[in-house]
């Protein structure tokens, strides 16, 4: 009975996030298309034109997969951190005084954020098709198979930030940006990092998104001639590292969140 109630609460919190996303469809669609066009079309395009000669593979396809991982991580992470941003006002107050476990609230936010991110994923594929980036259906299928890991990792990062900065909506907002940009540029999403050395190489390996981006590329490029040029590690290794980090972030973040939420 109790588990059923908690599951119902997870579905409710998740449904609300999806409904809000759909209700605000104009802004949601605008942002879903703005980022792929801005980063893939403009930034990716510029880099691609200047690098493509020496790379030996399709840069735009390479960047698209990086964008998929980054966008899903970011939108799921921000879906969870909205819990802190709205805490002092709005519906979140109501959620916190309901007879629902804090863990269910966090889980509901992760699932809700993930489902809302699917719209961004679809938008990204539409931009890819429109700009002529080659994507096979089998490749898309393999990407979709591992997206739950990406959602989980993004949600876990959101939970960690919510736990560490639970007392300040502004701080969690800033922290989200501070986490987002290094991930985007150091994870190899847009800029190849295979030949990075020194401090940059260390930073690349410290970014959780590095393993997610590599996981997506690993499954997409499986069996293709360029696999060795674009993929850093075996997908299984990326999967293990990503899951381990997600579990670590979830455990630490949930603990901090539940504790600090009441111990002000």
């Amino acid at each position, binding site marked *: 009975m109790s588990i059923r*109630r908690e599951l*119902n*609460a997870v*579905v*409710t*919190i998740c*449904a*609300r996030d999806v*409904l*809000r996303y759909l*209700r*605000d469809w104009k802004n949601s669609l605008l942002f879903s298309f703005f980022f792929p066009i801005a980063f893939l079309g403009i930034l990716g395009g510029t880099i691609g034109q200047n690098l493509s000669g020496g790379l030996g593979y399709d840069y735009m396809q390479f960047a698209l997969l990086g964008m998929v991982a980054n966008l899903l991580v970011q939108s799921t992470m921000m879906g969870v951190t909205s819990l802190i941003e709205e805490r*002092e*006002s*709005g*519906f*979140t*107050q*109501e*959620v*916190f*005084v*309901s*007879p*629902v*476990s804090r863990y269910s609230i966090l889980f509901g936010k992760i699932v809700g954020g993930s489902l809302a991110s699917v719209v961004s994923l679809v938008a990204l594929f539409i931009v890819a098709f429109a700009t002529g980036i080659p994507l096979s259906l089998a490749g898309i299928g393999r990407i979709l198979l591992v997206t739950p890991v990406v959602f989980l990792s993004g949600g876990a990062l959101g939970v960690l930030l919510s736990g560490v900065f639970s007392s300040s909506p502004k701080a969690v907002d800033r922290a989200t940006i501070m986490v987002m940009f290094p991930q985007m540029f150091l994870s190899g999403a847009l800029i190849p990092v295979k030949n990075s050395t020194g401090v940059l190489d260390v930073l690349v390996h410290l970014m959780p998104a590095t393993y997610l981006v590599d996981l997506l590329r690993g499954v997409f490029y499986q069996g293709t001639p360029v696999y060795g040029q674009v993929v850093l590690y075996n997908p299984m290794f990326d999967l293990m590292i990503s899951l381990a980090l997600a579990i670590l972030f979830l455990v630490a973040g949930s603990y901090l969140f539940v504790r600090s939420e*009441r*111990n*002000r």
Partner: protein
Amino acid sequence: MIHVQDLVKRYRHSETAAVDGLSFDVRPGEFFAFLGPNGAGKTTTISILTTTLAKSSGTVSIGGYDLDQRAKDVRQSIGIIFQNPSLDLNLTAEENIRFHVSLYGIYGYRPSYGMMPQPYREKVLELAEIVGIAQDIFKPVKTFSGGMKRKLEIIRSLMHKPKILFLDEPTLGLDAVSRRSLWTYLQKIHEEEKMTIFLTTHYIEEAEKADRICIVNHGRMLFSGSPEAMKSLMVGKYLLLDAEDRDSLRSELTGFGPEPLEDGSLKLRFSENTPQNILAQIKTPLSFMRLHEPTLEEAYIDLVSNGKDEEEAS
């Protein structure tokens, strides 16, 4: 229904306690008003009682459940109307209610009103009719006025049939008409449902109808008792009298302990004597007479100011 013993809350990095050893009980079905100036510890106390803030020490039980051991049961047995509306403005009024009942496990979540069970649909329409927002129940909350939002919050807080309703400044920012209509409905449910009401408010007149008032300042209790007890204890009733021949009037009233005021008129406090007793002693023609009945607001100001004066003196 609510038992609070030696409650202390000290925020991190704060030298003084926001709540400093509060103890009180609220009986089942009681209308309990919790008053105090800004920074008195009202919101801190209500946050602890509604499980959103941890206490530093003390014992609290709500509806028979210990706050530390059975927080979920406590949440299930209370309804809350927050100081700031806790509604999702992007959703319709009905959707806000539907999310509430699903979170409280009363009904499983369904993606539309039509898919919800019949009892839910009937209850929503019935309550919306009672509070007067039936026409707008399927409209987005962002189109609602402040009064309509409060009414919606009341409907929502009653859907899970709470034993205790916490109202944290429920009429803040509402116009006089909305305030009156809200209170008419709150009094009705208090009487009909025998629900325990715990109210914090800045509008002292809203506490006039409370069964009991508790006044706090700087986290400590200054007074606990009925509104009548508070009025009589703090300011009492008095007569203001004046006459052309003040000396004669004063000598006639010597036995009643007249207090001369700055303008020369006389103030006569009475608790055992009636104004009729006093007036019967007077032969001197009066030029002025006024009977003063204390208001709760005067008593409140008196009480809080005295507390301040004592603190400043010490």
